[in-house]
């Protein structure tokens, strides 16, 4: 409990320092959401691959973009890339577990308000989401908030950094693009629905199963990503 309290204090103190920046970028993103979902027919007649990519990028990556530059992973020295905020915390008398927790809390300060607003805007702006019915919409929200944890938490987990050169950068970027494209293409080719559309369908047809699977995967995310971050910070040499 003491660790959580200190982690909240650290994340809160850091967040307050960047609050002006956060409000500014948050407003910009809201405008972007309104334009994209209010005026572009992304959900009309099912989601296309482009619509899927647009939604996933906005949902998962915008929270990282609205975070201040200091918390982004960047080159520290030589081939070491890490988040400068993370390096700062490591040099202070803070337990590793507290540092780890604070990184996920700090990320959540940006991700959850943004993602909840996005999902709310979706309900207000798109008739396809509204037509699902309120209980199915709530399941849809749970599915995506769970995704925000079991996939989205990979972003704060990367704060500890890695040894990156142009080969690993190119390789991992290619791998992620190919994996994303293959997954989305698979959905469109095999199931004949877009990924986002599929989450809307399962929210309507299998609400209980969807919620249970989401809770299970959320638990996995909570277990896996903090351990991954701690393992990296213990392995890497911040020289």
């Amino acid at each position, binding site marked *: 409990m003491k660790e959580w309290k200190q982690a909240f204090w650290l994340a809160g103190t850091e967040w307050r*320092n960047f609050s002006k920046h956060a409000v500014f970028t948050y407003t910009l993103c809201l405008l972007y959401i309104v334009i994209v979902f209010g005026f572009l027919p992304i959900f009309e007649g099912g989601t296309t691959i482009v619509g899927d990519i647009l939604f996933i990028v906005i949902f998962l990556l915008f929270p990282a973009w609205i975070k201040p530059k200091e918390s982004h992973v960047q080159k*520290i020295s030589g081939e070491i890339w890490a988040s400068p905020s*993370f390096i700062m915390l490591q*040099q*202070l*008398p803070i*337990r590793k577990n507290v540092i780890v927790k604070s990184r996920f809390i700090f990320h959540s300060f940006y991700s959850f308000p943004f993602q909840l607003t996005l999902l709310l805007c979706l309900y207000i702006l798109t008739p396809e989401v509204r037509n699902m019915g309120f209980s199915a919409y709530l399941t849809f929200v749970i599915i995506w908030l769970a995704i925000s944890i079991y996939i989205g938490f990979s972003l704060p987990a990367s704060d500890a950094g890695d040894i990156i050169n142009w080969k690993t950068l190119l390789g991992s970027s290619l791998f992620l693009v190919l994996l994303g494209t293959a997954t989305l293409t698979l959905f469109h080719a095999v199931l004949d629905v877009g990924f986002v559309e599929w989450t809307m369908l399962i929210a309507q047809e299998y609400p209980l199963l969807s919620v249970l699977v989401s809770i299970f995967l959320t638990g996995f995310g909570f277990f896996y990503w903090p351990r991954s971050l701690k393992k990296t910070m213990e*392995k890497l*040499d911040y020289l």
Partner: protein
Amino acid sequence: MQPFVEITQVKKKIDNFHLGPIDLTIEPGTITSLVGNNGSGKSTLMKLMMNLANSDSGIIKLFNQNVSGDEEHWKSFVAYQSQKMIGWDAFTGEKLKDFIAPLYEQWDEQLFQRLVELFAIPLDQRFSKLSQGSQQKLTLALTIPRNTALLLLDEPTAYLDIPAKNHLMDILVEWMDQGERSIVIASHQIEDIKKLSDYLFVLRNGEMVGNFEKEALTERYKRYWLRNELTESSIPGEVFRDRVQVVSNHPEATEHYLRENGLQWANQSSLDLEEIITFLLSPTR
């Protein structure tokens, strides 16, 4: 009393650079300067002490706790100032203080305010907007008042102006008098080393040359001017020779040899610490 730092047979390989094996003990109440040429591993050693990097072998204990172990209580006894403060850029001095001070039980607010005034640090400006000198002053103002038992300073005076350097020396001496404390300071500034150090831990290209008590080291080196030119044969303790001049790091053995061989010297003198360090860091001498 238990040493604050115990480093035993520590080795670290980074690409082609090999650090160690390092053996070093830091006792309470001492100031140790890490001395070495550029890239000799001083900063790396400090980062290993802070567990910011893993050693390949050996053990580093701070306050009797293995720094790479699960127990992390040792962190609250150490204040570390690295050469470059990463992650500070977006914070103002005031915000940094609000962030750092609550983490240290013994934070000395009075000392912090005194340093801010002495160094004329603008606390309302972002760290990134400050000059290198002001950044260093702010870093010191946020490190020394932590009042931890051990202070690790990596090149603390590299960008300081002369008055600030003098103020810092006085403050560090005063700070040491307030309790059982120790400082480890990596520096190229001979004045810092001369004024502050009790011990000199010398590293040459990653290799440990030794940990020397400063006074004993200055007494150990002597220069002799001989009446006649030197012969080909080497002299015990000789670390350098010129036509009629020899520098020795074992004066007694040298003088004994000179007497035995009927070689008279016209004069002798002690060496300046800077010269001694140059000899220690020179692989050919």
